[in-house]
């Protein structure tokens, strides 16, 4: 609140409600205003501990900034100048150094690292934290398993400051999986004091208390409205962050969030609709960083299990009937990488996501509809998640209109967040619009969850094809033995198959957009798509 605005609003108030003389603006408040960073988002955390039951994504952000991990990622600068985490380089955090063999990896912990309450951090805490991650169940355990970290026996305390992880199988995802949010270091004694037989891992306590040693501590939390962080000045696991105090306010109305950033009251505005970001960038009063979300795709999923979309020709017809350009303009306002319009329907390189060869071609779509045996069209429903309604709703309306041209009548079905996951699990929705992005930015990792026959929850199309499974498994083993020739053949194999049989039609790769005041620096894009406060600075 700049001084001029404050005085103006005080006089307005005085005039309006005839209050006594306006309070003089104390210098202390201005100075603390400079040291505090305010950012606004649509929804807030429901749990501080990523191991907790049902922790939402804002909850991940709290865990990331308030707990340490053994190691983290380095940084690289992208084409447009914004910094991003570097998938391939790992930097020390709690662990000063580590030596890896093909059987295990041993970490040397920092000697002087302490938890927030000052007690020293030892390997025993690390072991307890890892055991907790693999046994507490739900999402954390599932994420650890993705990197073949499955059994407490793998984690060995060598001495107070050395910790070894034994591999159960060769998996090139194990190392990166150690740098995601889940394997954080928890303060074992403190949590066990609040644990009981019904809740052995103290999940209730860590739900709204931080028992860690990260760069920030939570000073105050009012669920659904505000989180206030204070910097942990005794933090040793990296350069001391520059911002002393961070206030996170939840402002549900997107219009207000934009007004706050434009008027300079908020330093950072997160998760605004694309249209606002596009316009803010043009106006140029604030800086907008847009980074394509690694491994992230918005797609139109077709249910391959039950008719009518188990017919490949019909799926291809639909792939040609999607109004791609209209979606890019009216829904994403250009803030996305198109996944369509490639030269051919075969893999052009080993990266993922990449463009497929389909484009809007109503005539071809009609012809394919006839070949597929649906000359006079069909009736179906198109569903989307109310939680992502800002993109989902206009997208469905455009798709509905263009599918109408080739005889496919659709009714739009708006499903609230609560039972959207429920519906996905049942895998009965014929046609859905959805998004998925994995933390580990490797093609085989994406295909393992979205296309593999094991029919995980992310394989929303329940697409099961022996050949596709073979390609994916072969690619994973090739990566483990870093046999690049086999890896190259198999990755191209499963990408071509995905494009040919198109069980889901990739539409675009969305961007993560953040709007910041000009005096904010040090923003870095991360795989978990949340804010990392430690690198931020306020000039």
């Amino acid at each position, binding site marked *: 609140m700049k001084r001029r605005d404050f005085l103006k609003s005080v006089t307005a108030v005085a005039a309006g409600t005839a209050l006594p003389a306006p309070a003089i603006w104390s210098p202390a408040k201005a100075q603390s205003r400079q040291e505090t960073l305010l950012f606004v988002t649509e929804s807030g955390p429901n749990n501080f501990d990523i191991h907790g039951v*049902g922790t939402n994504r804002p909850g991940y952000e709290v865990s990331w900034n308030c707990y340490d991990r053994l190691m983290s990622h380095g940084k690289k600068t992208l084409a447009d100048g914004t910094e991003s985490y570097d998938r391939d380089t790992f930097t020390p955090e709690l662990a000063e150094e580590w030596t890896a063999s093909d059987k295990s990896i041993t970490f040397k912990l920092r000697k002087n690292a302490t938890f927030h309450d000052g007690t020293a951090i030892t390997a025993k805490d690390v072991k307890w934290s890892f055991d907790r991650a693999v046994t507490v169940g739900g999402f954390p355990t599932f994420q650890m398993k993705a990197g073949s970290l499955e059994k407490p026996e793998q984690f060995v305390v060598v001495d107070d400051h050395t910790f070894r992880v034994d591999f159960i199988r060769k998996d090139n995802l194990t190392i990166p999986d150690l740098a995601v949010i889940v394997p954080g270091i928890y303060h074992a004694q403190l949590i066990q004091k609040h644990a009981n037989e019904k809740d052995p891992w103290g999940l209730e306590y860590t739900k709204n208390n931080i028992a860690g040693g990260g760069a920030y501590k939570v000073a105050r939390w009012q669920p659904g409205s505000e989180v206030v962080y204070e910097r942990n000045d005794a933090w040793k696991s990296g350069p001391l962050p520059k911002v002393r105090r961070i206030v996170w306010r939840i402002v*549900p109305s997107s219009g207000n969030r934009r007004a706050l950033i434009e008027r300079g009251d908020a330093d950072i505005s997160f998760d605004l609709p694309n249209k606002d970001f596009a316009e803010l960038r043009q106006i140029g009063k604030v800086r907008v960083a847009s980074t394509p979300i690694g491994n992230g795709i918005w797609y139109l999923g077709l249910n391959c299990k039950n008719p009518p979309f188990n017919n490949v020709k019909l799926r291809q017809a639909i792939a040609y009937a999607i109004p791609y350009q209209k979606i890019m303009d009216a829904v994403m306002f250009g803030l996305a990488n198109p996944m369509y319009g490639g030269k051919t329907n075969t893999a052009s390189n080993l990266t993922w996501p990449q463009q497929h060869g389909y484009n809007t071609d109503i005539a071809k779509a009609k012809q394919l509809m006839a070949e597929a045996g649906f000359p006079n069209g069909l009736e179906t429903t198109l569903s989307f998640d109310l939680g992502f309604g800002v993109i989902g709703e206009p997208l469905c309306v455009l798709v509905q209109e263009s599918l109408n041209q080739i005889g496919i009548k659709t009714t739009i079905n708006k499903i609230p967040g609560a039972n959207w996951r429920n519906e996905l699990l049942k895998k009965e929705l014929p046609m859905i619009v959805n998004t998925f992005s994995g933390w580990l930015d490797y093609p085989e990792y994406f295909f393992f969850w979205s296309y593999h026959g094991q029919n995980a929850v992310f394989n929303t199309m329940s697409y099961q094809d022996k050949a596709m499974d073979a390609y994916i498994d072969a690619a994973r083993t090739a990566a483990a033995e870093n046999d690049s020739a086999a890896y190259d053949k198999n990755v191209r194999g499963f990408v071509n198959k995905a494009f040919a049989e198109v069980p889901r039609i990739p539409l675009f790769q969305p961007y993560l957009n953040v709007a910041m005041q000009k005096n904010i620096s040090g923003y870095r894009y991360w795989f978990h798509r949340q804010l990392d406060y430690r690198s931020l600075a306020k000039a």
Partner: protein
Amino acid sequence: MLRMILQRLMIAVPSLIGVVIVTFLLTRALPGDTAAYFAGPAATQEAIDQIRVKLGLDKPLIVQFGRYVQDLARGELGMSLTTGQPVATDIRTRLPASAELTLLGLIVSMVIAVPLGIFAATRPGSMVDHLCRVIATAGVSLPVFFTGLILVYVFYYLLGLAPAPLGRLDIFFSPPPQVTGFFLIDSLIAGDGDMFLASLKQLILPVLTLAIFSIAPIARMTRASMLAVLASDFIRTARASGLSPKTVIVTYAFRNAMLPVITTLGMVFSFLLGANVLVEKVFAWPGIGSYAVEALVASDFAPVQGFVLTMAVMYVVLNLLIDILYGVVDPRVRIEA
């Protein structure tokens, strides 16, 4: 008077029981599967079943209802999964926010609507009468969230007069020590003028939005009851005995006309609590309305049940207050009860 209170509570008991049952059924009928929602995006089927058992949602409805009533008896409102807090603490922190907003909204709208109604009633059929009616009706014709958004757009975004719609307090104020939970009162108790001013400024726009929305019903009721009272015999006697217009209008007519208005206040207050939900969403107000809405959309039963029960108890207390107020004003009720 005590007997009247006892009697009023007697009547309230069946409706409270009704509320408990209806809320339970309503929340259980919500389409979402809470277990699936809270198992997280990547949960597998057995993870979800695990959570369903943990939450006890797999037992038959009757058993769940039995356990729910037991918890209720112990004053245990259960745990909110959306905010991760026990529902009771959530309600204790958030109810004063909503109450402060709604009460202030009601007071402001009373201060505007009642004189408007009296003014219109004392000059029936004149231009003033039509003008008051048009202004009051215009207020209620707009959806409350739309009025809120327009006020924010004009007074905050364009003119910069109003403070940022950031909730109850500016960012560098920490809330005053919790005494009543009403920031205005707590800041006065703490003697912090700055704080009082800041929370007052934050209240202006949302209170105005609620007030605009509730002026019409109160003004219309005041006008109608004033018209009826002014046509009655005892006003004619008062005029005939030469009492001054002020005494006739205020002491004689107004006090009688207030009786029906007081009863509609109960109706308008619960009407406002409902509209409050939307205002809280627009002004990021950490009130109980938006809390219930988020829980409802996330099919999180405990907060919805806790919220509705609090509202039901508040409604009973409110009606009791209205009856007592009615008794104070109208001796006939006091004697008869």
